[in-house]
């Protein structure tokens, strides 16, 4: 091969087109200047910065991106509204669903004087770590996805609000619904994480209030493989329903082993098993499994049609996911408060505290004394033909298919 000599270097290197020699580009420049000038005239409005925090990378990033896009959409629609007093800017931050990263980005948002409020968190563990930060810096926050009750109930921080429901609401609906289906006797299996224990606590509470009977409660470790001993004991107790508080992998194991050990009962789960992996892992055994989740598929929401149309129009590459409409509602709630009282953290906080019967795409929002939305939405799900369906749309609700008796 011939070596590269100085002679091989092209005599002239390609350069950027010279505007002096290119009339088209100087016209474009002039146009740009005019555009910029009119834009700055049009936006005589002050810009208000709002932070969005959620998991934008990592295992649950689909939910975070859906939430970010939805909040972004709310901001975009508001900025297009000539009646808005301010123009808004969304600062999206990634908490990676990790508490330590969450605290970092929360501090970054809270320490930025230009950020007036935040729409934050899908992951409960992250929110548990960051609520103190918001409180310390006095940054009003609306939680759009995290479900652990303690985020609003374990503190009395006036800065923390939540538009979505919690596992308390989920279990209240679950207990009432299942008792209404004429079931009386339950056995409970829950994993011994905070998630599983919380579900066990709230479900047991509401089940007893509604007249259901608990025959036995079994705590299991989150990586347990064998449930023969527990299920043999449960078989002896003859429950009509097995309530499982935990997430998909364990749920698959227990449902599968129920079949192996001949335990005939309805398998009732929590939001933690509503996943395609659950149905895939069980095949036909998933049929007739019921579970409950905060929120609702967008098309079931009061303003779902409008939200879906706008979201489709914006042509985002990721879907809004289950909590997108909540992020959208949270962003609008924050912007409405700013419109009303101006870009001042304290005033916005007080305005948010007073939220009552606020109309949003997820329905009415009213905060209780812990600034938790008191009219949360819970959706009932059932597996039919290898898919999670909303109960009301299923053949089970229509009476065409019976649950196990």
């Amino acid at each position: 091969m011939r070596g590269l000599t100085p002679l091989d270097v092209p005599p002239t290197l390609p350069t950027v087109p010279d505007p002096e020699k290119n009339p088209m580009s100087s016209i474009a420049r002039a146009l740009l200047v005019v555009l910029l000038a009119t834009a700055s005239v049009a936006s005589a409005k002050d810009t208000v910065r709002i932070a969005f925090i959620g998991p934008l990378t990592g295992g649950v990033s689909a939910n975070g991106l859906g939430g970010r896009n939805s909040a972004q959409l709310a901001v975009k629609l508001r900025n297009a509204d000539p009646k808005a007093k301010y123009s808004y800017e969304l600062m999206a931050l990634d908490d990676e669903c990790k508490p330590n990263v969450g605290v970092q980005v929360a501090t970054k948002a809270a320490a930025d004087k230009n950020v007036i409020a935040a729409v934050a968190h899908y992951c409960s563990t992250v929110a548990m770590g960051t609520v103190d930060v918001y409180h310390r810096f006095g940054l009003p926050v609306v939680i759009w996805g995290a479900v652990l009750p303690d985020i609003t109930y374990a503190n009395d921080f006036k800065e923390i609000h939540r538009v979505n429901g919690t596992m308390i609401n989920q279990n209240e609906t679950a207990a009432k619904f299942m008792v209404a289906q004429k079931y009386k006797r339950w056995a409970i299996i829950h994993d011994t994480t905070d998630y599983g224990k919380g579900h066990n606590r709230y479900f047991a509470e509401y089940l007893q209030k509604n007249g259901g009977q608990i025959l036995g409660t079994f705590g299991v470790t989150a990586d347990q493989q064998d449930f023969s001993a527990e299920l043999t004991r449960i078989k002896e107790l003859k429950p009509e329903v097995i309530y499982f508080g935990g997430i998909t992998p364990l749920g698959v194991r227990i449902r599968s082993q129920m079949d192996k050990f001949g335990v005939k009962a309805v398998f009732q789960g929590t939001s933690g098993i509503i996943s395609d992996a659950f149905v895939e892992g069980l095949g036909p055994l998933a049929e007739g499994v019921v579970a409950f989740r905060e929120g609702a598929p967008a098309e079931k929401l009061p303003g779902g049609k409008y939200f879906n149309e706008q979201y489709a129009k914006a042509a985002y590459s990721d879907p809004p996911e289950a909590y997108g409409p909540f992020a959208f509602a949270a962003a609008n709630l924050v912007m409405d408060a700013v419109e009303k009282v101006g870009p001042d953290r304290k005033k916005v906080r007080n305005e948010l505290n007073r939220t009552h019967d606020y109309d949003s795409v997820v329905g009415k929002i009213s905060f209780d004394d812990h600034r938790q939305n008191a009219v949360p939405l819970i959706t009932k799900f059932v597996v039919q033909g290898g898919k999670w369906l909303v109960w009301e749309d299923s053949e089970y609700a229509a009476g065409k298919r019976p649950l196990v008796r």
Partner: protein
Amino acid sequence: MDPALFAQHLLNGVMLGVIYALVAVGFTLFFGVLDVIKFSHGDVVMLGAFTALATSIAASAAGLSSPVILAAMLLAAIVGMALVGMLMARYLVLPLRNAPTLNVLLVTLMAGTVIREGVRLFYPQGSNPKPFPRLLPTGAFEFGAFTLRHDSIVLLVLGVGAIVFVHLLIVRTRLGLAIRAVAQDPETASAMGIPFRGTVLATFAIGSALAALAGVVNGLYYSEVSFNMGLLLGAIGFSAAVIGGLGNVYGAILGGFVFAALQTIGAVALPFASAYKDVFAFGVVILLMAWKPGGLLAERSAERV
């Protein structure tokens, strides 16, 4: 307690014991010949189960019948894991023979993580639990509260058969004699013309094949496998081998059944919730080790394996 129910718990415990014993025998074989602890053993169990799963999917796509699929997946898992075991021995364990045993422990621990994460990343949707095909007869004998499933009988026969086979292999064959000789004294065995490296590789092949069988039995018993199933199985198999007496095959089998019994008692007979059954079982293991540091059937220096 109702005798039928007692029998049911006993059967559940025995099934668990067979799986644990199959895993524990591997640990004890490796320790016997090389005085090493191979911490990737649980993940080899998992890899065996996934090899069987992949084979069964391919075989059923080819339209084969259940018994043929079963034979194919057993063969693929056992041969595959025997090879994996030999490769690990050849390239990870033997080169570190003169290094501190802690290094072997670390290297195999890391190899286990590589296997586990590899399956998670490269098996389609590997993070999710996978349904394992139900290839065994599904009927059951019912005697009141006692249910004896046909598939449990098959699995029990398979597991016990494998253990008896290994016993005969060690006691009756020339290879078994070589393994016992190397276990006792590698230098003298080599001097007597016993190929050291070949014997070690054979031992790792046997132990890993048993792990593959444990993985398949586990999958058929629970109808579900997941990429992290080997973690706890490895810890339990190792504990079982230690309480039985590391280096003693019969001790490992005994240890497997003892551990299964402890877990079952922990979940059934103790007044507090079943959440503590592993705490109870591992707690008793600690006490047993304090009482008999060498294990229930401690290896005698004159007779190992």
